């Protein structure tokens, strides 16, 4: 298909500007990750296998411990979804993420010393190990294992999909990637068993690359490979942000200037356009996604500015543009999605060269939908609760702000993937330094991201069409503005790093649950180390590849699944683990009831929400997230059942709460 550019100058100006630098950086990065896995495997040969493979022999130092903790907590959302939120809702997102100021102190300090100490006393390698040993209760251990496998399997599949989508988003329109997609498209067309999955060859390539790399380095190198790659990934992330911040502020002419401009901005309108050529197309042609269009006014008003959210195609001999999607009725096919961008006067001046070159097409606005909160109001991007296209209460009403403050802080503490890291540091000196390091690390990452993408709102308007792309676009724009386009490759490596560092941890969690908690502790406690070793490699590979195969048919509600599983795990584990570590009177009946109570409350609230809304959603009583409600239920149930049942055996209390007698 040819473009219309010969007849309509500037038509392809909006195509992606990301060059092959992104793909080259990605390749270098992958090589680095694999080298680290190889080094880890060499170390594995000289240590106790399970303790080294799943816990790094409890020997993590400050940098390894701090960065693996920080990197595991930062998923792809931190570099794709979060920038998109800032871009779409403005300064209020700083409050949405504000609790990260206290997250390191709470999520590390709350449990670290005690869980590490108890794991050492018993030789526990996994979180279910700790819980089982703490109460000498195989039932509680098995319950914990089951919940980890249940939630983490969903989460792993969603993360695989997320990783593939992010990679695809970042590589979109990169020439090398386009070529690979064409080749794959021809190959998968001959594989009928792929069904609908064959429609998106780009996604399949990205899924395959991501999954194979993560499975190989995780399975081969174990926990230490995951930690070392987390260190590298953590440095890439913070390096990317620290470099990007001054570039973004420089490109925008200062942060104060950006804020004053944002104060004049109004939310965009979501529109459907009919686009018509003045004369029939001589050959098949298209207007790409994100193309700027202008509708001049007859009454002296400034022109209305649009940006396409859909690709608009023109068949040879036709004048009306259509969507490329097959199976649409003629009426539906001519309704092209776009955003009507409300530019400030200064943005119009900046954009003048681009707007002067918009293609000469006739535009009719068929439908125009305003934001439910903030439409037509200036100042909504610099105040709370922030504009929202779907919620009348705005992006972040106060109850939700409190919910997120609680959730980000305590949900992190309740994640088993974080708890296992707390079992792996070598001494409290390391813990103290690492807590401070992570505090500074988060300070350097999260608030600067808010500033960077507020700048993006001013310098790159109109990306509401595809706000998930704002990170790579901003990386390109800022580095091109100082004549260093190669730097964009480094900056866009940050999201790769964030997704991988989360996926590898989850993969190892499931693998350890199957090998250690199910097989070794329940089925065959006397299995030889050789058997355990072989089983560990096999299970890690099998779980990874299994999750990849399921993700070939991507699950819907990706972000919802990630939030559901993350909050579900925290709701189930947080109260029982805190009470197990700090309350001598706590017994196994209370622990089991507390865990089940939190789990069931969380599931019930999601079931009610999904039933009410007809899609995956949480019911939020009084505006509070199921995590908050579930934790309250879990705590009350655990306390009540403990008080109503006999105290724990004396020897267990002595073992875990009293000083070790010297011999």
């Amino acid at each position, binding site marked *: 298909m040819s473009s219309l550019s010969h007849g309509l100058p500037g038509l392809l100006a909006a195509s992606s500007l990301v060059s092959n630098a992104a793909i080259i950086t990605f390749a270098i990065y992958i090589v680095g990750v694999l080298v680290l896995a190889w080094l880890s495997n060499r170390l594995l040969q000289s240590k106790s296998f399970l303790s080294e493979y799943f816990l790094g022999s409890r020997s993590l130092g400050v940098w390894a411990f701090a960065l693996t903790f920080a990197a595991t907590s930062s998923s792809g959302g931190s570099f794709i979804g979060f920038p998109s939120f800032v871009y779409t809702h403005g300064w209020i997102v700083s409050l949405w993420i504000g609790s990260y100021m206290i997250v390191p102190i709470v999520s590390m300090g709350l449990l670290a010393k005690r869980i590490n100490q108890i794991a050492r006393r018993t030789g526990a390698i996994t979180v279910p190990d700790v819980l089982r040993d703490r109460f000498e209760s195989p039932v509680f251990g098995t319950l914990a294992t089951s919940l980890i496998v249940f939630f983490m399997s969903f989460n792993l599949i969603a993360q695989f999909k997320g990783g593939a989508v992010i990679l695809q988003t970042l590589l979109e329109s990169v020439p090398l990637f386009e070529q690979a997609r064409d080749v794959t498209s021809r190959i998968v067309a001959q594989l009928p068993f792929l069904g609908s999955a064959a429609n998106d060859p780009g996604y399949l390539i990205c899924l395959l690359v991501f999954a194979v790399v993560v499975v190989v380095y995780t399975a081969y190198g174990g926990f230490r490979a995951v930690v070392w790659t987390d260190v590298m990934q953590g440095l890439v992330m913070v390096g990317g942000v620290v470099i990007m911040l001054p570039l973004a502020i420089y490109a925008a002419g200062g942060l104060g200037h950006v804020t004053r401009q944002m104060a004049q901005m109004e939310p965009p309108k979501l529109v459907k356009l009919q686009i018509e050529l003045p004369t029939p197309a001589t050959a098949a042609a298209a207007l790409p996604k994100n193309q700027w269009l202008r509708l001049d006014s007859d009454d002296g008003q400034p022109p209305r500015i649009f940006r396409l959210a859909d690709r608009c195609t023109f068949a040879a001999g036709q004048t009306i543009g259509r969507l490329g999607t097959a199976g649409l009725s003629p009426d539906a096919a001519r309704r092209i999605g776009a955003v009507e961008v409300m530019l400030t006067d200064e943005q119009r001046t900046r954009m003048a060269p681009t707007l002067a070159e918009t293609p000469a097409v006739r535009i009719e606005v068929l439908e125009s939908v305003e934001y439910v909160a903030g439409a037509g109001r200036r100042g909504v991007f610099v*105040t709370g609760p922030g504009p929202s296209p779907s919620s009348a209460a705005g992006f972040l009403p106060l109850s939700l702000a409190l919910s997120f403050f609680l959730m980000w802080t305590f949900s992190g503490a309740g994640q088993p993937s974080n708890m296992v890291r707390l079992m792996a540091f070598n001494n409290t000196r390391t813990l103290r330094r690492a807590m401070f390091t992570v505090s500074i690390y988060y300070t350097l990452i999260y608030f600067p991201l808010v500033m960077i993408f507020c700048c993006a709102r001013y310098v790159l308007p109109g990306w509401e069409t595809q706000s998930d792309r704002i990170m790579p676009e901003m990386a390109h724009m800022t580095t091109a503005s100082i004549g260093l386009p190669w730097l964009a490759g480094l900056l866009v490596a940050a999201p790769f790093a964030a997704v991988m560092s989360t996926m590898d941890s989850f993969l190892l969690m499931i693998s350890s649950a199957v090998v250690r908690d199910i097989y070794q*502790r329940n089925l065959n406690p006397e299995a030889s180390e050789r058997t355990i070793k072989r089983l560990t490699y096999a299970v890690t590979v099998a779980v990874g590849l299994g999750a990849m195969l399921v993700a070939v048919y991507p699950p819907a509600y990706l972000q919802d699944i990630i939030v559901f599983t993350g909050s579900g795990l925290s709701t189930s584990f947080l109260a029982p683990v805190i009470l197990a570590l700090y309350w001598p009177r706590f017994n196994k009946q209370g622990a089991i009831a507390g865990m089940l109570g939190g789990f069931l409350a969380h599931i019930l609230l999601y079931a009610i929400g999904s039933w009410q809304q007809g899609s995956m959603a949480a019911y939020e009583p009084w505006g509070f997230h199921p995590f908050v409600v579930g934790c309250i239920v879990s705590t009350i149930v655990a306390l009540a059942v403990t008080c109503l049942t006999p105290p724990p055996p004396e020897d267990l209390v002595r*073992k875990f709460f009293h000083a070790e007698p010297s011999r």
Partner: protein
Amino acid sequence: MSSWSPTSGKDAEAGKSRPAYDPVFLNARRELLVIVVLFVIFCVWSLAVCYFWGYLPAGQELPEVSITLGMPSWVFWGIVAPWLAVDVVAVWFCFIYMANDDLGESHEGEDLAEQVQHLHESEGGQSGNGPSGKGNAR
């Protein structure tokens, strides 16, 4: 540090007095309380400043944005200031307040060894070493 062996339930029943609470437990519990207090302080600070200074009542337009260091003033005083304050508090908490504790030796394989021992006992066999090859703790 010498290795440690848990006291059996029989000893406890025989009226053996409990040793003192573990100092790691006591220090961790004290630190936990401080952490919770810090969370409440910074949560209230941040939410209160942002809500009372930064939320625009429905239907109102912003007269003029108040700016501090390039950002809306409510962001500076409600997010940046407490964030930097937390970092300062983190210096005090991590390097001055938090105790250095001995977390003990790692008893690798002990839980599994105990499990195997119980298994053998329940089968009527003699107790033996676990698969890790390390001796039983008791």
